[in-house]
């Protein structure tokens, strides 16, 4: 199962404000697609120079992306709380 969204929450004790974003990956994917297409020739060139097969490389990154589902990072200090949850 691929992750479908990242929830980011930032709370500030000083300003007593909480900001929360839910970023769907399909939207991020659409927005980043032009950048990815622009970078693709560069990636292929680097792979050719380094003699790396690009397909296992892309497969490995895809597996890492899929495995991100369920990741949680919560960090809190005296004044701030930051939470990132991938689901």
């Amino acid at each position, binding site marked *: 199962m691929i992750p479908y969204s990242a929830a980011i929450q930032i709370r500030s004790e000083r300003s007593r404000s909480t900001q929360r974003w839910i970023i769907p990956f399909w939207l991020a994917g659409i927005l980043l697609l032009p950048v990815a297409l622009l970078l693709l020739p560069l990636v292929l060139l680097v792979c050719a120079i*380094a003699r790396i097969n690009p397909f296992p*490389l892309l497969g*490995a990154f895809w*597996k*890492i992306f899929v495995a991100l*589902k*369920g*990741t*949680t*990072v919560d960090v809190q200090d005296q004044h701030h709380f930051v939470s990132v949850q991938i689901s």
Partner: protein
Amino acid sequence: MNENRRQILEMLAAGKITADEAERLISAIESEPPAPAGVKPKPKYIRVVVDDNKKGTGTKANIRVPMQLLRSGVKLAALIPLQARDHVNSALHDHGVAFDLSQINPKNLEELIDQLDELTVDVDDKDVKVRVFCE
């Protein structure tokens, strides 16, 4: 049919035990408590919990990483180009770490990650508490 019941019926068929003895043995088997429900489920996440008790900071971190991410991440080592691998190996050797990256294979990595389920690290300092465990 379970194995014990089959053995009892075979002994009965072979005439080694009487029908009464077979009945007693079967009822004894049925009254046994059920075996534990399989093996312990494998942990899915590795957790890192940091609690800084130092006065004035109150820093806390709670990180949960899926085991699958470790599996995928370590497989990237297999994609390191040969030239870079030689550089890394020599750098490791210079720092006293006699380790060869080319020795890493997926089977070893799987075994290593499978053994992590027993892992628990507790660091209890005056100011900081760190816990690393699997769940």
